[in-house]
């Protein structure tokens, strides 16, 4: 009887797993399937299509030559900017079936896994692979939690970038090549554009895109040190300077498209490309999208969002070593490729991001990345909450909810207290 029941349970469980993987896997690698083949290295990501998939494929080809003893098993879950994947991953980790290695945003978002005891310290690997010298000290400091490092970044993205359409800006006699010096100057330019007949000069999309704009305004108005303080508890969220910044955000929202809650960032970028809008603020994965959409270099310009020049607001995708993961030796080989110069080059030239290593050769990269790589070397590195570098999943969840509420009924005092309250949770 017992055997029968457990068999039934196993069947039902298998059906459940199938259902989960059927939801999104483009390449069904069987997730955390049985470890019959101990050579398998299951790599869990949310890179299932577009430039992300191309980047992953690039890294896999390096893995296949560097780690001949092992077999790469794709365990990607598509959709929802990683939120679907995170849910599946949480289930697997909870069930004690971690993949060999999984993708996680470097920085505060990793704290969830660290606190839950789900990832191992990889500081030793940094010495072994020579990464402690290859990565900028700034980044290593950002990754270190209580003296330990828990992941190896594959890339770096920049969040605080504004993409502009110079042809639209010309309508109001604005110079597309130069960023306005401050948020106030930007608002003045937006006013001119509106007067020139552009109904929604600043294109924006839902959810994290609005969060990124809030962050860009806060960074511009408070400066990098106080901005970082917002996330580590040293700056008071209830302060008057935060109120002033959020009021400017409220003003910026009045220049945006009315369907901002209904569209995703590629649509907002489309408004800029088609000349319906003058600007959009989005991370530098836009560069890869423009390449993929064959938008010529001359059709758009970009600069650090107004008032944030000299600051590189970063986010990084990184790989971890899960506690009790299957095939840890194979996973270490994957991590070695992740951190290596070859692996980062294969990945980043395709994904539109820049390598975390500071010894990469800019000549290998397209035009936008060359500029970003130069900035990465000299700018002050500031984390982004929208992509997990500055805050945990839970905090980000509450912040997104508050920002969506604000988008429908703008109440600065309410937003400010909700943001403060969100950072008090874990």
């Amino acid at each position, binding site marked *: 009887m017992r055997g029968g*029941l457990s068999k*039934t349970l196993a069947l*039902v469980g298998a059906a459940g797993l199938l259902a989960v993987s059927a939801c999104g896997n483009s390449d069904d690698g069987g997730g955390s399937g049985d470890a019959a083949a101990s050579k398998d290295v299951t790599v869990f990501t949310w890179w299932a299509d577009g430039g992300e998939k191309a980047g992953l494929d690039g890294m896999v080809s390096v893995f296949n030559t560097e780690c001949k003893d092992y077999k790469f098993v794709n365990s990607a879950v598509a959709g*929802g900017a990683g*939120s679907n994947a*995170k*849910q599946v991953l*949480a289930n697997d*980790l*909870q069930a004690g079936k971690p993949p060999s290695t999984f993708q996680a945003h470097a920085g505060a978002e990793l704290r*969830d896994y660290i*606190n*839950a*005891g*789900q990832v191992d310290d990889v500081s030793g690997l940094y010495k072994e692979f020579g990464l402690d010298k290859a990565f900028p000290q700034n980044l290593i400091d950002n990754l270190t939690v209580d003296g330990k490092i828990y992941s190896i970044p594959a890339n770096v993205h920049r969040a605080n970038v504004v993409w502009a359409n110079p042809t639209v800006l010309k309508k109001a006699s604005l110079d597309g090549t130069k960023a306005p010096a401050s948020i106030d100057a930007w608002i003045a330019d937006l006013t001119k554009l509106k007067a020139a007949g552009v*109904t929604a000069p600043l294109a924006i999309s*839902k*959810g994290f895109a609005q969060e990124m704009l809030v962050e860009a305004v806060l960074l511009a108005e408070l400066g990098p040190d106080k901005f970082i303080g917002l996330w580590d508890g040293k700056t008071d969220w209830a302060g008057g300077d935060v109120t002033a910044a959020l009021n400017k955000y409220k003003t910026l929202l009045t220049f945006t*498209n*009315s*369907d901002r*809650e*209904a*569209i995703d960032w590629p649509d907002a970028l489309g408004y800029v490309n088609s000349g*319906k809008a003058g600007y959009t603020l989005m991370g530098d994965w836009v560069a890869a999208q423009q390449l993929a959409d064959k938008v010529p270099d001359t059709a758009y310009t970009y600069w650090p969002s107004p008032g944030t020049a000299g600051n590189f607001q970063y986010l990084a995708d990184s790989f971890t070593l899960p506690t009790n993961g299957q095939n840890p030796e194979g996973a270490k080989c994957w991590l070695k490729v992740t951190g290596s110069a070859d692996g980062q080059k294969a990945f980043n030239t395709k994904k539109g991001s820049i390598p975390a290593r500071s010894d990469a050769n800019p000549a290998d990269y397209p035009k936008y990345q060359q500029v970003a790589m130069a900035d990465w070397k000299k700018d002050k590195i500031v984390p982004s909450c929208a992509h997990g570098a500055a805050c*945990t*999943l*839970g905090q980000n*969840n*509450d912040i*997104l*909810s*508050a920002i*969506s*509420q604000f*988008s*429908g009924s703008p109440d600065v005092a309410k937003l400010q207290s909700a943001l403060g309250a969100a950072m008090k949770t*874990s």
Partner: protein
Amino acid sequence: MHGRIRTWGPGALVLLPTVLLLGYFVYGLIAWSFNTSLTDRHTARKGPANYVGFENYGNLFTEERFLNSLKNLGVLTVAFIVGTLIFGLLWALLLEKGVPGESVFRSIYLFPMAISMIASGVVWGWLLNPSQGEDARGLNRLFEILHLGFLENAWWTAGSRWTTMLSIALPAIWQLSGYIMALFLAGFRGIPPELREAARVDGASEFKLYRHVLFPQLSPIALSALIILGHMSLKLFDLIYAITGPNQFRTEVPAVYMWNTLLRSDQAKAAAIAIVMLAVVAVLVIPYVAYTVRQESKE
């Protein structure tokens, strides 16, 4: 003794797998969820948790985000049930009066049922685009073309809770009205023709025929429809998630909030939300079960 086992033994054996599976997967897991909701298990970390009694529930009912999601759910349920019943009954009445090519209409009305909520959610997400005037898209574009500009609106992205949740209920109504139509149509067809004839012979007008003869016969079906729609509305997750995405304060219902809470590994809180949802379903279903049991024992 031996003979008695023969009588009930085979029956019990047939039922046993169902009882075991149901006991484990339904009642066992409800008990497990309830147990989790009484602890302080707010992370994914394993190990023993402390019991904190009903603290999680207390916190939920003082939290603006949760109360907002409950209110959203209330409005959504009312809009969804009323809308679906009205359209379902209307379509059933039209078909019941007899039209040429009835089966074609039946298929058309029932067709939305065959589409998964997540797929129709994606499409309705586009249809409910809030842009108006020159930039209008989706349904607003249609109104623009038909010169019905006054019907254009921001759908769920602005305005009161009622306009927001009514917009969300719209796709759900579209999807389930056909099913309710089928229920009512079956009900109409089940009424013996003698009843109508007798009423007509007695000189009842068409309106009186429906009001006093046909509708009363349909009340058990209306009640089942109410229960089915009520519990479906509580479970609405995929549709809302597909249209608005996660973390959308305006349209968040407890099911979506539970998903968000679980994503951040706050297991105790997520379990508490699940138990509250179960309690709301129970409020709907228990009176119905009691009513049916009483009806059956009367017969």
